[in-house]
């Protein structure tokens, strides 16, 4: 009985009580333009400050215009979404917004992919009256290792603030100042590098303008590729292949693995490898560590701490370094696949091709911005030379491909190079929430029980629910597994551990919604979460089609151990594939 009848643009509709005008109109196929409003359906993320006022509509009987994103419908409401009063108001408000926005669209990182630009086009803004004497708010630009903040372009939509605080509970960003001077940024307008930012990049992923963008490394990559004295190796993260096609007009969820390889080869990379290989390696190390801790724990060793937490996600690593430093000995010490790849490439592989470390350049293609930060962490450098030289995002790769005049749509499918290009299906699913732990379970189960798994698809570990719990029977030993995506959800699990109330043996955490497929470096989803789901499905599809689906069966991994590392958790592995964590909490010191 909670239905409400109303009229929008002379069309009648019946909707649930509590529906907004915006959503009701959408059901009628009327798309009211919105700017600050963002609804990530299925992820429980909604931003509706009602601040931009672009989505205003005329409601009969109401004095002023109503923001459709945040006004609930009522019985008998009569709405007009395109009266001249509305159109004039929208355009005037847009002129206000643009009057305080730089006009350097030609060189803006967001150009062509900018919600604000699209809106200006849609609303037919052709001039900004009074621009010549309009004061503009200005701030200094912040260049962090991963993210560039140019607050001159901030329109106070508050999406980044919401992601950083409500979803990630990082709290690096907040609205500051008042009125015309108001913007969103870290405390004291400090640089992100000095804040508790984890570089998850979700602020960038939702920013509707060029205020938050990635630090672009494509120029560095071009320079490396043009240097005849360098051998350039590239690795591609699993989530990239499930999203790159979108930048070339393909349907979300299109897998472009082969075309991507072929594009990279044409760009001039000497070796096109796969981060998935390193993901398999991660499973070998992390899975062994898990089994080791588990065995000791079940054997009554009180020194051993459980649950073990995954450590592939660099934003997540930063998060616990900032907020839970007292628990820094709980996560697995295994480095992330990106870093394992770099370490192996610059030792094992460099030796194989008889190239000196400093003449080998490792580029990674990542769905992630935190990877840029991770690549330049001191502990991943040898004599100042980083294991991974440049980490570029899926979006940056798309730019490079376009710049090279290549059309991904018509490129042939090609295969990765060997040996670091071979991977199992387990490596592929690292790209989505639940994937790392599923890959680990596949290996840990078989190594622990000595039995072959009947079924490799662990459906109970999959899905988009914020926090998921599952128990896997390890031949009589029930192993409790927790999964969280989003750091706010991770925080809940960590608080439980801190309080001694955690029931889990192992927990997988990824910082971004949906995992890496929803990373801050991916093609922008523009609030359409069905895109994320399609990417996740593509990842699982790729896994299902792989001849080898378990990390410990990857022949090149086995060969790597045989030729170079010895066995998982060996002295050499420890040196190259593991790391330590640091206390990065904000400390008050007595001066």
């Amino acid at each position, binding site marked *: 009985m909670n239905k409400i009848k109303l009229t929008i643009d002379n069309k009648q509709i019946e909707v649930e009580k509590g529906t907004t005008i915006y959503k009701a109109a959408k059901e009628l196929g009327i798309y009211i333009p919105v700017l600050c409003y963002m609804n990530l359906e299925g992820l429980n993320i909604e931003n509706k400050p009602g601040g931009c006022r672009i989505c205003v509509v005329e409601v009969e009987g109401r004095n002023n215009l109503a923001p459709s994103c945040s006004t609930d419908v009522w019985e008998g409401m009569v709405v007009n979404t395109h009266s001249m009063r509305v159109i004039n108001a929208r355009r005037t408000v847009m002129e206000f917004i643009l009057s305080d926005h730089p006009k350097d669209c030609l060189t803006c990182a967001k150009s062509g992919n900018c919600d604000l630009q699209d809106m200006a086009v849609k609303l037919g803004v052709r001039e900004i009256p009074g621009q010549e004497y309009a004061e503009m708010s200005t701030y200094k630009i912040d260049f962090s290792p991963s993210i560039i903040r140019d607050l001159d372009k901030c329109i106070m939509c508050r999406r980044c603030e919401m992601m950083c605080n409500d979803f990630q509970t990082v*709290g690096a960003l*907040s609205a500051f100042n008042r009125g015309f001077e108001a913007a969103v940024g870290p*405390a004291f307008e400090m640089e992100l590098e000095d804040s508790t930012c984890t570089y998850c990049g979700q602020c960038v992923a939702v920013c509707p303008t060029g205020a938050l963008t990635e630090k672009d490394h494509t120029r560095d990559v071009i320079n490396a590729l043009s240097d005849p004295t360098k051998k350039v190796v590239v690795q591609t993260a699993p989530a990239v292949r499930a999203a790159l096609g979108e930048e070339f007009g393909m349907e979300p969820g299109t897998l472009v693995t082969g075309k991507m390889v072929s594009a990279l080869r044409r760009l001039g990379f000497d070796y096109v490898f796969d981060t998935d290989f390193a993901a398999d390696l991660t499973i070998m190390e992390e899975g062994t560590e898990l089994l080791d801790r588990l065995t000791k724990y079940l054997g009554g060793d009180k020194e051993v701490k459980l649950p073990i937490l995954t450590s592939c996600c660099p934003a997540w690593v930063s998060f616990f370094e900032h907020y839970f430093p007292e628990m820094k000995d709980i996560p697995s010490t295994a480095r992330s696949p990106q870093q394992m790849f770099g370490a192996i490439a610059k030792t094992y592989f460099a030796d194989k091709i008889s190239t000196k470390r400093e003449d080998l350049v490792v580029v990674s293609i990542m769905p992630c911005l935190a990877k840029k930060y991770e690549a330049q962490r001191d502990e991943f450098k040898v004599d100042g030379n980083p294991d991974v030289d440049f980490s570029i995002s899926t979006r940056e790769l798309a730019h490079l491909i376009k710049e090279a005049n290549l059309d991904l749509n018509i490129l042939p499918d090609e295969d990765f190079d060997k040996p670091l290009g071979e991977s199992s299906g387990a490596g592929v699913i690292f790209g989505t929430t639940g994937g790392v732990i599923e890959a680990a379970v596949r290996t840990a189960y078989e190594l622990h029980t000595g039995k072959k798994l009947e079924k490799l698809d662990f459906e109970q570990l999959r899905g988009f629910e914020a926090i998921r719990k599952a128990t896997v029977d390890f031949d009589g030993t029930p192993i409790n597994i927790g999964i969280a995506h989003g750091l706010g959800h991770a925080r809940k699990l960590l608080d439980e551990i801190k309080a001694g109330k955690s029931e889990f043996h192992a927990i997988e955490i990824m910082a971004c919604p949906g995992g890496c497929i929803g990373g801050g470096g991916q093609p922008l989803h523009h609030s359409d979460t069905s895109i994320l789901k399609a990417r996740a499905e593509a990842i699982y599809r790729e896994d299902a089609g792989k001849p080898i689906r378990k990390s410990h069966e990857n022949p090149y991994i086995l060969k790597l151990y045989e030729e170079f590392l010895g066995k998982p958790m060996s002295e050499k592995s420890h040196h190259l594939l593991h790391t330590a964590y640091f206390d990065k909490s*904000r*400390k008050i*010191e007595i001066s």
Partner: protein
Amino acid sequence: MEEKSMSDIKVKVKEKDLIKIQEICKSFDNKPGELINVLHKTQEHFGYLPAEIQEVVAQELDVAVAKVYGVVTFYSFFTMLPKGKFPISICTGTACYVRGADNVLQEFKRQLNIEVGETTDDGKYSLNCLRCVGACGLAPVVLVGDKTYGRVSPEGVKEILEEYQEK
């Protein structure tokens, strides 16, 4: 892997300041909802709210320091800069405006050679505007510290400043 200090963030404060802030926060049960009350008390004690003090408040109340900064910069009563020994406030409420407060303000700016919100180099005077002290009958009104001056004219500015010259 050797333990080395990453770019960890350290905030330095004097011990007695730290204890004072902790005391203030505790008096409000360290509730995040009491942030504004805490900031009032803290500013009352320190005269202003520099970054390191905000950091401590943030930690004590378990609020992100960015949020504390967001609150401090929202409210005009809070300041991150120390005020002069003799803070001068010019009422720019409507009644004072209508009776020429702007001319008085300009004269103070000229005489002190500072802008609104600034403090003279010798730390003696700072200049601020405030909205209606409620002494509209005396408009335009100027406050120096707690002392109120009514019906101030631009010509009277020099006289007021002279009072504090020797102090």
